[in-house]
């Protein structure tokens, strides 16, 4: 198959795609940013261990051909989750599948359906915190941004229902790219829960989904954030989450990434004023030949902020994962408390993890810790389980699941825990007999 020039085709596609006129300036800036960035190779530090060769096998820089899909509700339905739901299929908003309840002080609308006044607001805010110098896919998202979700919560307002934004991808006749955006602004002391879920139909995928989320969390406000990727293992996903934390605000994020052909997530959190707290927990579970690549950047730019970051990964078969976690303490960020922990379990001698926790400290009165471990299943623990009659296979699965269970148990939304538990268990085996003991929620005991 011919090797294609991804960047050249991306530029050509950006020029012809039909977009919203109010995002013209973002699109133009994005295109300029994108043009300045070369296609990553193994020599590009931020992409060193993730192969993007799949992107040069087909021309992904084409519009999706169809966004029609039958009965996709079951893919993302979360039992007992009473939420405002916005569903996008291959980047196209599906009103019929969505359900938004109006609430005083809450603006929740798609870019396309926003009023001219709201569109004017969006155009001034979008692209303000997403950084593109490390990730050309975010630059490309800027260049191609057209539709997305706009959430604005007024001062002191608690959004009553979680906001469930679903992205479904489906197989196309020809390879294609879909773009989507999410822009969140929480006013002073506002509170909201945002669940970003990525699913696909159960078939070979050829849509590259490029999704960027930006959130400004106002003074004393709190954003509860979930990002759940459970698409087909052939999926291509490039995600970016960019957060700005105002004074005494909080950002609590749970990320679950099952593997894909290439699945990349960049998360950037700026502690920009002071007193803010970031709690970030993530689990990645690639298997077969899947790849997952997580880059997190926490910028402590102001004093008295705290970060607690915990990621765990289990790599099976010939899968590969990258975890790059950087905490950067700027000179003004005195009294920072920051911790970063990354633990990994390799289930096969062909599985790979490249982990790099980084602490860069320019302030002198801070307390920081970081660490990473890579291990295999504990043979003594396995013997213990087997000595109680549990089969070797089930013991492996119980121990693997145990490795991530603590993070899963810490998810505060019951409905999500219940949804994710079997999905994660299925990563280890499709035999339900072997997972029946682990899918019982610890809370039920």
């Amino acid at each position, binding site marked *: 198959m011919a090797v294609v020039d991804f960047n050249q085709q991306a530029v050509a596609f950006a020029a012809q795609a039909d977009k919203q006129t109010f995002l013209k300036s973002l699109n133009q800036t994005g295109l300029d940013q994108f043009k300045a960035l070369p296609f990553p190779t193994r020599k590009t530090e931020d992409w060193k261990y993730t192969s993007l060769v799949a992107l040069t096998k087909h021309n992904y820089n084409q519009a999706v051909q169809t966004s029609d899909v039958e009965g996709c509700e079951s893919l993302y339905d979360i039992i007992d989750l009473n939420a405002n739901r916005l569903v996008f299929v291959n980047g196209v908003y599906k009103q019929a599948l969505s359900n938004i309840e109006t609430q005083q002080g809450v603006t929740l609308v798609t870019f396309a359906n926003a009023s001219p006044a709201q569109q004017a607001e969006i155009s001034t805010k979008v692209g303000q915190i997403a950084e593109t110098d490390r990730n050309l896919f975010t630059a490309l998202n800027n260049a191609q941004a057209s539709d997305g979700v706009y959430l604005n919560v007024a001062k002191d307002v608690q959004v009553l229902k979680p906001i469930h934004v679903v992205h479904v991808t489906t197989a196309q006749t020809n390879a294609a790219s879909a773009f989507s955006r999410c822009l969140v602004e929480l006013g002073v002391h506002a509170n909201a829960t945002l669940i970003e879920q990525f699913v696909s139909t159960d078939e070979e995928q050829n849509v590259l989904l490029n999704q960027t989320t930006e959130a400004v969390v106002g003074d004393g406000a709190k954003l509860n954030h979930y990002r759940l990727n459970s698409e087909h293992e052939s999926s291509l996903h490039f995600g970016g989450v960019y957060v700005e934390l105002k004074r005494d605000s909080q950002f609590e994020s749970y990320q679950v990434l099952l593997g894909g052909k290439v699945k990349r997530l960049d998360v950037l959190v700026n502690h920009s004023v002071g007193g803010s707290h970031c709690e970030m927990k993530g689990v990645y579970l690639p298997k077969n030949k899947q790849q997952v690549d997580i880059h997190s950047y926490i910028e402590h730019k102001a004093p008295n902020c705290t970060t607690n970051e915990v990621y765990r990964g289990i790599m099976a078969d010939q899968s590969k994962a990258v975890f790059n976690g950087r905490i950067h303490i700027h000179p003004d960020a005195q009294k920072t408390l920051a911790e970063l922990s990354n633990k990994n379990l390799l289930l096969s001698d062909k599985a790979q993890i490249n982990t790099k926790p980084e602490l860069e400290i320019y302030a002198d009165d801070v307390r920081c810790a970081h660490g990473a471990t890579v291990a295999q299943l504990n043979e003594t623990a396995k013997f213990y389980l087997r*000595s109680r*009659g549990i089969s070797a296979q089930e013991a492996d699965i119980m121990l693997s699941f*145990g490795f991530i269970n603590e993070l899963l148990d810490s998810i505060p939304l019951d409905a999500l825990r219940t949804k994710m538990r079997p999905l994660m268990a299925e990563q280890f085996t499709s035999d339900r007999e072997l997972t029946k003991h682990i899918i019982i929620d610890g809370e039920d005991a």
Partner: protein
Amino acid sequence: MLSIKNLQAKVEETDILKGLSLEIKPGEVHAIMGPNGAGKSTLGNVLSGRADYEVTGGTVSFDGKNLLDMDTEERAREGLFLAFQYPVEIPGVSNLEFLKASVDSIRAHRGEDPIDSVTFLKLAREKCKAIDLDQSFLKRGVNEGFSGGEKKRNEIMQMMMLQPKLCILDETDSGLDIDALQVVAEGVNSLRDPNRSFIVVTHYQRLLDYIVPDFVHVLADGKIVKSGGKELALELEEKGYGWIEESAAKGV
């Protein structure tokens, strides 16, 4: 029930068991005593099929079946239970899910239906109470953060849940204060039954005041060098192991 003949085993390149023979009938309690390094713990590990222990000779038959042919989990399902000297901590796997998986697999092997969750939880709570273990332990990771005594009680609690045919207690008394020792011993005694046998491996006679054995064997240098009734334990307590090792060395 258990017939061990001329059992030899090594760990890495060191021979530990050098021709051990032992016959255990249903309902009997056998104490195995001996100095450190005699092979006491090896016996339990070999019988439960631990991978690092290589059997180099001899036979073990359990209820007429060749025990050494079975995987660790098969031995457990056939009714062999080893209470570990050092129970393993397994964070992230709750005690309850562990117990349920264990009981389910053993029941399935016996051709019995699984117990429903509600009944199971009730049963597990009862056993916790009997062994003086707070119910909250069921929710916690297996042995995670348990004290030494709690770990040993958790072993006995599992034994009560699984109702094995043959229980091997590997230095269950080590690290226990006298109160905990009594609770553990009561748990064990409550399981004594004409059809259930015990091998109680211990360094000290103290435990045998509470779990009274039918037979006492002295293990030294990989073999049983002396056997007797419960009074042998008292003699050992008084005289130490030296005299037996000496007479064994002389071939007496």
